[in-house]
């Protein structure tokens, strides 16, 4: 159980700091010194722990799925090299969910009933999580999602669904407001796609901006099928200090190019979410205009000068070059802002299973309870994105958020918002629900 959060002067909620989970680091150092065959022999069962990986192998999430797989495979290689989980090797059992909620629910059934997986893991797209989570509850299958959707913390899911390895969009957006108003300017114009994704930004940012002493002077919603944007730019008020944009889809390069043509050399400050350009090379044509603008990043894409060794080790393990692209093809840019969540979640599953003394699928409930009992997760090899605090009641982790500036076609981190400043009041207590 987490401890009761306390109010802070900012009005946000801050937890009481707890020590790191001892099990996180326990045993790994000792195990790593043993030969592979010896590492697993102390376990009661040498059968592998099976982690059902619901992969977006096809459908609109496929590019994410590919990088989620690479990251997960790298994480398991590390975990196995360090002795596995409770002395047992760990393996991924991959099923394609087609980025489709109906198939994702079927995939969970296969994990539980056919392939005898211990847990399910890895779903990214929100509509897939929302469609599949109820089935996880029925199957009593621990379901570790890496989605960054607010659906977990909002209380719409269940006791068996957890998001301990990636922060949610609500905390991300609200954490940006102080920087926007404090550094870039008080008057903010939002440009967002006219559907649920855009509304999340609209509804979460505006109150946070006002709380930080700023003002949203215009909200420009753009139809999802729009491919030319010139007619919308005149709607931007002249006194705008900052443009906050979250355009996505195939027209995003066009959007940036046309915005650059509209403003010319004199433009307001511009702030965006990297989701718009995840896996896109920032030196692409049309993006020159982004030079000097700012982005939220879930995890820095470019290797920063002051990156600690564990960050370098994580990037090397996944196969990233300094620009966050594949070491085998510099044009193959990763989904850096999201995929670290797979690495961290797998380490949390390991920590949870070890804390619970997990032996078999009969211990699934113990595993969920052990993860719910987690709180602080210190930055390190298991948590390269940074120090986090897990809220067992809401099943959601809170972590650092990065604000980066485009300089010379690369993203340089200019501010790191610590997890404490990203926390909002609990909206649910899953621990009060029955299993």
């Amino acid at each position, binding site marked *: 159980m987490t401890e009761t959060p306390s109010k802070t002067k900012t009005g946000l909620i801050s937890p009481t700091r707890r020590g790191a989970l001892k099990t996180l680091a326990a045993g790994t150092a000792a195990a790593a010194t043993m030969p592979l065959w010896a590492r697993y022999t102390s376990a009661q069962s040498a059968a592998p722990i099976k982690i059902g990986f619901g992969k977006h192998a*096809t*459908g609109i999430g496929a590019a994410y799925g590919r990088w989620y797989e690479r990251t997960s495979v790298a994480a398991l290689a590390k975990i196995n090299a360090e002795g596995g989980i409770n002395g047992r090797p760990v393996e991924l059992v991959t099923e394609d969910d087609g980025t*489709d*909620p*109906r198939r994702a629910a079927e995939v969970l059934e296969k994990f539980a009933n056919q392939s005898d997986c211990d847990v399910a893991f890895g779903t990214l797209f929100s509509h897939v999580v929302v469609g599949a989570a109820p089935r996880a509850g029925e199957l009593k299958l621990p379901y570790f999602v890496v989605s960054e*959707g607010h659906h977990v913390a909002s209380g719409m899911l269940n006791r068996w669904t957890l998001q301990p390895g990636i922060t949610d969009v609500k905390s991300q957006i609200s954490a940006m407001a102080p920087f926007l108003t404090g550094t870039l300017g008080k008057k903010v114009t939002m440009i967002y796609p006219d559907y649920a994704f855009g509304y*999340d930004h609209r509804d979460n940012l505006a109150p946070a901006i006002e709380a930080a002493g700023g003002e949203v002077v215009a909200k420009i919603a753009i139809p999802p099928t729009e491919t030319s944007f010139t007619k919308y730019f005149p709607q931007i008020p002249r006194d705008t200090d900052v443009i906050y944009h979250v355009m996505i889809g195939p027209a995003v390069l066009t959007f940036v190019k046309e915005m650059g043509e509209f403003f010319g050399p004199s433009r307001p400050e511009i702030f965006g979410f990297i*989701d718009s*350009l995840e896996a896109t090379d920032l030196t692409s044509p049309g993006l020159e205009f982004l030079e000097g603008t700012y982005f939220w990043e879930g995890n820095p894409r470019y290797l920063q000068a002051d990156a600690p060794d564990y960050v370098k080790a994580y990037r090397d393990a996944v*196969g990233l070059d300094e620009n966050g692209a594949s070491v085998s093809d510099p044009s193959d840019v990763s989904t850096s802002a999201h995929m670290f969540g797979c690495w961290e979640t797998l380490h949390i599953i390991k920590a949870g299973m070890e804390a619970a003394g997990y032996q078999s699928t009969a211990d699934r409930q113990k595993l969920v309870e052990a993860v719910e009992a987690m709180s602080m997760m210190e930055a390190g090899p298991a948590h390269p994105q940074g120090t986090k605090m897990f809220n067992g009641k809401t099943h959601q982790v809170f972590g650092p958020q990065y604000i980066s500036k485009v300089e010379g076609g690369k993203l340089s981190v200019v501010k790191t918002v610590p997890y404490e400043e990203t926390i909002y009041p609990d909206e649910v207590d899953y621990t009060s629900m029955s299993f």
Partner: protein
Amino acid sequence: MVRRAWIWAGLAGLLPGRVLAHASEGAFVLLLPTDAYIAGGVASVALTVLLIALIPEARARRLFLSWRLSAATRRRGQMVTSALSAALLLWAVSQGLTGTQDPVHNPLPLLVWSGMWLFLLAGQGVLGDLWGWLSPFRVTAALPGLFGVRPLLRYRPGWGYWPALASYLAFAAVLMVHIAPTDPDRLAWMVLGYWGGTLLGCLLFGPRWLLRGEGLTLLMRLFARLAPLRRQGGAWRLGLPGWDLERRAAPRLSLAVFMLLTLALGSFDGLNETFRWMGWIGMNPLEFTGRSAVVGPNLTGILLAGPLLVAVYGLSIQAGLVLIDAGGFRQSFRALAPAILPIAYAYHLAHYLPAALVEGQYLLNMVRHSLGLPEGTVTTGFFNRQASVRVIWLSQATAVVLGHVLAILMSHAAAIRLHGSHRRASLSQAPLALFMILYTLFGLWLLASPRGA
């Protein structure tokens, strides 16, 4: 709360449950001057219409003559290669049922959707009838005979190619409507079902079933007739692509309709990913919710695409006959249908080129894995650079334009045979030529459109 952020709307859906849709490509395509490219492409096809009407009649008549290159030895060993292919497919099916369920690593979806559907079908139109060597069904069709089982029923001539059309439609439904066509275990059962159905057809009607009732083999054979180098009358002959279709008698009505269906389904396969189509069916292209959400619209689409194309094509034919005050609609309808095949083939090439660039890497990895070699890291980086996206797009557009140019030439040559004179042929072809020019526009528009599924 809906998951946010993806800019690769582009290629998803290119293959059934397309693998690796990284449509930064789509974003780069929107930055290309595609309007100018499209205008150039359409103008090229229109110019072809003019040129073919202006060249001397004798030359027009000789367009599709072929040259004898050398004597062709008898085909030997096709049954052996077919048996090997069947063994490979059986192994892949077993892998589908028991191997990894990740479609980009399991041999079954890789062999069926990438190896056969994507690459082999593309190879047919250039290299000729590879399927004759690699079809697992050839040996299947021979099995009953090997055991002395004679066909149980007589295939009635009146049935024509309609059974093949039905099985092709079933195949297309898996490709475009089924919610998980690349799922290895489900695909294994579907392959076994199709294979079993083919065996049953051959048991009932003999090997003839492969030619009349099995849609894939028919499609493969039709595309193979577009190849410039063909075997005919004991010799290898070379000619303009399509010469082997031009020399044949007009196809039967059912075969003509099958030919039209190849284009109709190929077109719908492209259309159903566009923002425009998504708008029609009320789907937000930026949060496409998966194939299970579009089963109804896609099923409706593949059922309506055929009749719609047949109707428009038929109207063009009839209008042409009215212009020259001639009859014989049915004969013209049949005789001109083969000219649709190069367009359908070009659509296949253009539509699947980006997918091939990615799937090919997985297929190669599968081969390397089987040989115990280290696998390469699959990349989609070429979708991330303006220069490579431009090359890909222009290659696709070139295929579409060349397909239409060939279609114009083929239909003109067929019209000369139908109507006797160059002038009457040109006049009768005007409406069909207009149809083809507009179809070029449609095809290039498809390539340039933002996609979201």
